[in-house]
């Protein structure tokens, strides 16, 4: 076992170290995925580059309407940030259901998106927020929409030597609500069998405008459901509309059978959570959004 451990103090150093170490190097932040995977497979990366000492990547910065989350922001930071309200409440809801405190205290948003697990809970929410990922490399920085950043299960567009530095998104319109729902056998410590996020905005005419819906664990990667969104826009979430939306969502997912659930149960839950995520988001506009729009 010969692992080289590097600890860059600056972003430039991190990039340079990764560049020279090549494909057998891995970045580590919280470490909760990397260490478990290495131990299970019995193969450790030749080089581990610790990003935790990089300055300035651990903050959540609001520059209305934009939000910038440094790549080293932990799940606990997100779930504890009372500023995430209304259309951003789903972000906290998705951050607080991953592992226990012990994991959420160290697991980072950067690590979560780079790991690109099909069942990663924050991804559907970030997709609904049209989040963008900033990557820094030798050639400078580039910004990639999250939906393009993740290519497939555990596969991203990040090139060797590139460091994810932040995730950013714009808060949706004032009269918006959001929701995150997940299915699993227990109330904690669960890898989702289906995870659903929605952000819904209300138009002046009392219908839904700008509906955003994303699902995780129901296919090789978390995805937005544009057909369902399009169908819902301009409508009010009546029982029949939601029923139809659920059915549309089911036709857009491609879940698998595994030890956690069957594909058919995942499809069933996709329909149920589509209805509930939209309905909850909508109700939250009524509960919270009115205050906000008045303000």
């Amino acid at each position, binding site marked *: 076992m010969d692992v*080289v451990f590097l600890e860059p103090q600056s972003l430039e150093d991190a990039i340079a170290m990764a560049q020279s170490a090549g494909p057998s190097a891995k970045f*580590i932040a919280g470490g*909760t995925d990397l260490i*478990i995977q290495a131990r299970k497979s019995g193969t450790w990366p030749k080089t581990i580059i610790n990003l935790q000492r990089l300055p300035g990547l651990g903050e959540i910065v609001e520059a209305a309407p934009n939000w910038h989350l440094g790549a080293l922001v932990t799940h*606990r930071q997100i779930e504890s940030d009372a500023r995430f309200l209304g259309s951003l409440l789903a972000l906290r809801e998705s951050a607080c259901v991953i592992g226990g405190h*012990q994991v959420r205290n160290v697991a980072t948003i950067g690590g979560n998106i780079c790991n690109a697990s099909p069942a990663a809970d924050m991804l559907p929410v970030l997709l609904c927020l049209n989040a963008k990922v900033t990557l820094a490399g030798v050639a400078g920085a580039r910004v990639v929409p999250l939906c393009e950043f993740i290519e497939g299960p555990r596969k991203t567009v990040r090139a060797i030597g590139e460091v994810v530095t932040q995730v950013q998104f714009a808060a949706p319109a004032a009269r918006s609500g959001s929701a995150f729902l997940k299915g699993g056998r227990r109330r904690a410590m669960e890898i989702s069998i289906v995870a659903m996020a929605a952000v819904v905005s209300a138009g002046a005419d009392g219908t839904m405008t700008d509906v955003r819906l994303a699902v995780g664990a129901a296919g090789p990667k978390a995805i937005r459901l544009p057909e369902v969104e399009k169908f819902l826009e301009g409508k009010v979430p009546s029982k029949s509309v939601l029923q139809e939306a659920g059915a549309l969502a089911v036709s857009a997912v491609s879940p698998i059978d595994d030890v956690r659930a069957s594909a058919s149960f995942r499809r069933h839950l996709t329909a149920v959570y589509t209805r509930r995520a939209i309905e909850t988001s909508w109700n939250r506009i009524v509960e919270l959004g009115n205050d906000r729009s008045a303000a």
Partner: protein
Amino acid sequence: MTEVPLDLNVNGRRYRLSVPAHATLLDVLRDELEQTGTKTNCLEAECGVCTVVLDGKSVASCTVLAAQCNGRSVTTIEGLAEGQNLHPLQEAFVEMGAVQCGYCIPGMIMTAKAFLDENPRPTRDAVREAIAGTLCRCTGYSKIVDAIMVASQRLSQQGERP
């Protein structure tokens, strides 16, 4: 074996060590420092028996590289009591019957310690949420929650004293 230097504060004592780059904090505590109060089990951050407090936050020491802890401070179960005087959490666990086999208890107490430091007067539900990452197979958790609630009261009262 590539080793890295490690300057680690454990329970107030400073250690200067050289450890394998892939050694976890748990490996170092149990094997290098021979402090076995911190327990080992699943090694995938699912059971919580290895929980310690790292710079004020609870972490699963099985999934933290020791090398990442250079210059940082760790508190383990061995660091809670002051001499013969148990910490209020330890006392409450004894009194409330929260200990059965006891193997999860070091991790449980350290999980609770970090949580109470941030949330001195939690609700029972908040306590249940806080310890959800630490499995106990013996107690069904009720008496553990009781103990943490009792400890939170006592700690708050201590804190309020001038």
